[in-house]
């Protein structure tokens, strides 16, 4: 998110696009996909134009510059009809919606990877709105560098998620959370999987991580995703394309379909699954190899997801994912599954994250990190607990995130624990020096604690960092009150979400009964 720093372009663009929507009759959900489609088009055009310049005059009498030359440069080939300038120059009164639809079709025709992905519903928008939108997109300066388009796309995704409320959350995990997961997971090389991939934020950040470590993401990582909502699959494919990435993204309900035949196959696993989902039909999951520790008895999918993640990992695979807080202390059959997971020596790091990080719910959450490769290492009998609830930046009254420095600081604690060298690309050295003056891992009350499997057993197999990390000096007075209020608030938020779903179902059912 742009917070008073220099990425004001996206904010300006958003304000313009949003004002336009406010003046139209469109709902945010009807508006978002076409707008994201136009950003995509503008970006493809930009890359194409650069490549075109470089290829100019390279053709010889015998051989014209063609599609394959562009593809060799990693650029989408744009046919004439899809050029941004062409669309801008359409005369007044022309059917712009139709023209953009044709442009999208033309791109898909030349690029089979994008077949049926790009939006083609532009004629639902008014001509004048489209002209205005094209102008807004055209105002993106041509000379912006690096991944600026990707950032704009992400910014819009995030903003739409906020505008669309609860439903929008389905396709967007806040960037700060994704970055923290990626930094801790360090997906340098291998097959990356997200079976609840939404708009693909996890992949994009993983690629960025590889890039900042001076490697070429396309050569180092391969991307596999699954997502339930067809529209979101398209958003994800566009998102990957905008970032110059390729991936195998399929549409399916992950509970019942494992389209990538995942067990044992993936080196890295990143995901933000929906929390506390009920009514999964467990009869359909019997004998599924993705659930080696058995099915939970309660009507809650959290421990289905956790096992899907666990089982997909290769021999040395690592997983990092977002989970509802309640899963770390869940009892009965869920406790049994958690116990097996801990006894398997797979749980590596647990991070507690405070509330207000997500756009649409104020819920706090936990990040779980599994590492199948820790067996036989120093860390085999240990788990690192991090309490990051007191670390955040307040963006506005209702929203928080992490600064790059804070993300690096948290990831560095994990690096020390793993015996790796801490990084200092984002200025976390000062925070590190303050807490870890010896440059070695130590337990810091209120922040981090390495617990043994024995200690975890003594805590009834709880994976809740709050139980191990304790409180920093001077905070003890406040602790009980805030802790309690936070717990209550979490429970309330979960119930609020559930209540909204129930209310919706009741009203649909009642209408049916009344009309029958």
């Amino acid at each position, binding site marked *: 998110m742009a917070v008073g720093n220099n990425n004001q372009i996206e904010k300006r663009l958003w304000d313009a696009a949003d004002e336009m929507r406010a003046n139209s009759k469109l709902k945010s959900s009807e508006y978002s996909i076409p707008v994201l489609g136009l950003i995509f088009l503008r970006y493809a055009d930009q890359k194409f134009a650069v490549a075109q310049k470089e290829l100019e005059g390279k053709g010889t009498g015998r051989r014209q510059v063609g599609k394959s030359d562009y593809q060799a440069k990693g650029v989408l080939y744009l046919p004439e009809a899809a050029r941004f300038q062409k669309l801008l120059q359409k005369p007044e009164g022309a059917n712009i919606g139709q023209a953009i639809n044709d442009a999208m079709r033309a791109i898909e025709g030349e690029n089979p990877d994008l077949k049926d992905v790009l939006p083609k519903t532009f004629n639902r928008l008014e001509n004048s709105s489209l002209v205005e939108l094209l102008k807004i997109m055209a105002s993106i300066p041509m000379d912006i560098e690096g991944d600026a388009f990707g950032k704009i796309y992400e910014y819009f995704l995030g903003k739409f998620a906020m505008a669309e409320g609860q439903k929008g959350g389905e396709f967007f995990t806040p960037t700060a959370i994704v970055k923290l997961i990626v930094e801790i997971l360090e997906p340098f090389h291998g097959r990356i999987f997200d079976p609840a991939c939404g708009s693909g934020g996890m992949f994009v950040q993983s690629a960025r991580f590889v890039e900042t470590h001076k490697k070429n993401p396309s050569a180092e990582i391969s991307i596999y995703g699954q997502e339930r909502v067809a529209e979101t699959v398209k958003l994800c494919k566009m998102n990957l394309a905008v970032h110059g990435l390729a991936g195998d993204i399929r549409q399916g309900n992950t509970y019942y379909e494992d389209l990538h035949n995942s067990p044992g196959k993936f080196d890295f696993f990143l995901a933000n699954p929906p929390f506390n*989902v009920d009514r999964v039909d467990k009869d359909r999951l019997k004998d599924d190899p993705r659930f080696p520790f058995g099915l939970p*008895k309660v009507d809650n*999918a959290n421990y289905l997801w956790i096992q899907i993640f666990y089982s997909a990992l290769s021999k040395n695979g690592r997983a990092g994912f977002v989970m509802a807080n309640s899963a770390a202390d869940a*009892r*009965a059959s869920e406790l049994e599954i958690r116990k097996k997971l801990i006894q398997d020596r797979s749980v590596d790091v647990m991070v507690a994250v405070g509330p207000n990080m997500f756009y649409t719910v104020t819920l706090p959450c936990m990040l779980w990190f599994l590492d199948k490769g820790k067996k036989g290492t120093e860390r085999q009998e240990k788990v690192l607990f991090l309490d990051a609830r007191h670390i955040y930046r307040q963006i506005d009254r209702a929203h928080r995130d992490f600064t790059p420095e804070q993300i690096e600081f948290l990831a560095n604690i994990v690096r020390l624990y793993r015996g790796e060298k801490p990084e200092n690309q984002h200025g976390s050295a000062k925070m590190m020096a303050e807490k870890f003056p010896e440059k070695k891992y130590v337990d810091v009350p209120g922040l981090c604690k390495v617990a043994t499997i024995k200690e975890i057993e003594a805590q009834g197999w709880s994976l809740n960092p709050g139980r191990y990390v304790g409180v920093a000096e001077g905070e003890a007075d406040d602790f009980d009150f805030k802790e309690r209020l936070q717990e209550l608030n979490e429970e309330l938020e979960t119930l609020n979400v559930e209540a909204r779903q129930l209310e919706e*179902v009741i009203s649909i059912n009642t209408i*049916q009964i009344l009309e029958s």
Partner: protein
Amino acid sequence: MQEKGWRSILLGEFVTLQRGFDITKKEQEAGPYKVYSSSGPNSTHSKYQVKGPGVIIGRKGTLGTAFYSDEDFWPHDTTLWVKDFHGNDPKFAYHFLKSMRLEQYDCGASNPTLNRNHIHLIPVSVPLVPIQQKIATILSTYDDLIENNFRRIKILEEMAQTLYREWFVKFRFPGHQKVKMVNSPLGKIPEGWGVKNLLDWVDVKYGKTLPKAMMEESAPYLVYGAAKVIGRYKEFNRERPTIITGCRGSCGQVTITRPKSFITNNSFFFDFDNKSFEYGYFLLGNRGLNDCIGGTAQPQITLESLSGIQVIVPSSTTLILFHELCEPFFRQMRVLSEKNDVLYKTRNLLLPKLISGELDVSELDITIPEANA
């Protein structure tokens, strides 16, 4: 007339009931499994007898009750549990058994008792499983939302209560660091706060006499007896939600009435002003009024016995701040509880029509709250 997709059978062919397992309170050790007695899941145990999902009904003592359990459980000897659903939907079986008013089959001499061999022979009409699932879904959605609302009401009250304790018991209110603690008849209190006689601070009055015969079931306004709803009446005597406590019979429990209620003379009402309302509620609730209960024939609280009560009155800034923070909690609690009234009514309107097949749902495309990935 037999609806399409319904069949007439005996209850024993629909579900096989079995008597629960004896276990004394002493033998129970707290654990993850619920022990169901005829009045519900009142305790837990470390072992279970029956794997969930299951349905339990009251057998002895309390009849006509039915409970549903997703998890494994221990049905107590005072219950019957469904040993075999014969392929029927467990949730539907629960709603069905609950609607049967099984208390009418009481065969106990002094203590109400059900005999499973008797009730197995009751003729019933049940639909095919797909229709069962639709009916169960419709009804369970109401139950789930009602339960959800109850839990939210409890949590909201606890949140406000947590804040009350922090500010007014531990005196850790905003800005407390800069306030000196001074002596008072009730121990140390922050400077600028006071101690007052309850009756000097707030008007306490009796409600009005209302003979039972004047109440009508269909009247619009709730009537509060000794801090409890006892009926309905065509008029109300309090416009705003009001803090009351029973003063005759059951005494001392502090409750907030619905807006536009009739309060009888079996309750006192405390006429707190707006800004003191939430503080007053927790103050009285936490203090309790048990020490004021007197009376010879039946327990009672008199105005006189309240006259000795001294209370801490916080500074007006702190009171107003507390009110502003808590008022939305209280309003939401009220909305949720009014919502539950409507949900109950709707559910009870639907239940007999659905269970009997009078309302045909076989063709409806009933939405099941879906599991999404």
